[in-house]
């Protein structure tokens, strides 16, 4: 072999493998640091370019379904039924006419990412349940997504917390389709998978029915920091 010289190529490959291992092992802290550094930029970013960064905007888009049907402000409907006195179908403007609740909380995903200080507003689920009247014997509330796949459940007690919203606004804007709009659930004290996106139906039931993720091994009572073997700081 006529070519000698230092094996720089091999060193680069081995160095990258080493960095990769360090990144995987310390990733949780790095992700947290990244989030803290980027969050202030993202809030003031008029170009939307930070959305193109990994973790841009903090939220990761995730869906298991092939296609999400589009619901606009005009075509959107929320059916509320089950063990209620007055089953009702709400349009988006119906929801806007109900008493509004706003709150700002961190959003924590069970896979580790956290978005700090997200502003949410909409109708407190408790107020919506009040509107339709919960019948005796009701113990739980089931949510279905108009994507046709996702379902979620809360106990009636959890559902009546003031920090559980049928959210129509997020980060000061109407909830985008990507983030589960026009209407999604927001369950402040629990991991993100409880905050069902593309909310299409609410059914009051006599027992908790485990939802999509819970059939796949995640906890039904998904308190942040006290479930799924995680020790994140509570969000509410």
């Amino acid at each position, binding site marked *: 072999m006529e070519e000698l010289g*230092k094996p720089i190529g091999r060193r680069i490959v081995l160095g990258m493998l080493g960095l*990769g291992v360090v990144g995987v092992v310390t990733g*949780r802290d790095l992700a947290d640091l990244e989030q803290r550094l980027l969050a202030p930029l993202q809030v003031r970013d008029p170009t939307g370019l930070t*959305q193109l960064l990994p973790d841009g905007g903090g939220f990761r888009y995730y869906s*298991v379904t092939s296609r999400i049907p589009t619901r606009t402000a005009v075509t959107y409907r929320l059916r509320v039924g089950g063990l209620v006195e007055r089953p009702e179908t709400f349009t988006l403007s119906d929801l806007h006419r109900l008493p509004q609740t706003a709150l700002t909380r961190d959003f924590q995903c069970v896979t*580790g990412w956290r978005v700090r200080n997200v502003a949410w507003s909409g109708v407190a689920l408790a107020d919506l349940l009040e509107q339709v009247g919960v019948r005796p014997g009701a113990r739980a509330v089931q949510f279905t997504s108009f994507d046709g796949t996702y379902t979620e459940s809360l106990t009636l007690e959890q559902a009546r917390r003031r920090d559980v919203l049928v959210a129509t606004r997020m980060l000061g804007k109407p909830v985008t389709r990507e983030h589960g709009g026009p209407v999604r659930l927001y369950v402040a004290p629990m991991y993100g998978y409880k905050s069902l996106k593309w909310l299409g139906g609410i059914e009051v039931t006599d027992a908790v029915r485990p939802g999509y993720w819970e059939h796949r091994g995640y906890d039904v009572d998904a308190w942040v920091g006290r479930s799924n073997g995680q020790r994140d700081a509570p969000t509410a």
Partner: protein
Amino acid sequence: MSVDGVLSRFSRGERWVHRATGILMGLCLLTAAVLYIGPLSILVGRRPLIRTIHVYAGLALPVPALLGLGSAAFRADLRRLNRFLPSDWAWLRDRQRRSGRIAVGKFNAGQKLNASFIAGAMLVMLGTGLIMRYGAGGPLSLRTGATLVHDWLAYAVAAMVIGHLWFAARDPIARDGMRTGDVPASWALREHGAWARAEAADQPRTVNPRNSAE
């Protein structure tokens, strides 16, 4: 200087490895864009299908290079890419590196860095990708770390691949070399002088240096 003839640069096997790797890398990057970039995700949908394509393209990505190890020409080029000669450092530092005044070997230092980076990245992406796809039973913090590394390295790989395509787009002769396997000796003398002279000695029938004095 003026030189007639052509030099054989890449064997059929090497060109096959390059093409197959390129196609798989393209699939990985395009599906990654659909999976990662929110507006594209919404536009394209079909996430389970896109994810399946991404996973299998990623698993297959190292296969052509592994098969290439069966080719002596491919192994010889791997050795060339691995080794940095003093002329490579000089070439990297030279502001007029494209003038050809520093005669480099079969690959210039930029090509060596690119190849090494992509080789390392493939392994790291494979490892982190396996954790993300099949590590559901493992610790969540490892999955978070793997996701972070996979995300950021994906952007670096995309930048390197775009750079690679950019240089290829500017040099039709180099592209012909990868397509046909042969390059004109005049091009080789300008771009890879040391290699061209060594090859000219080995391939006397195809190359006829009429006046190789510089």
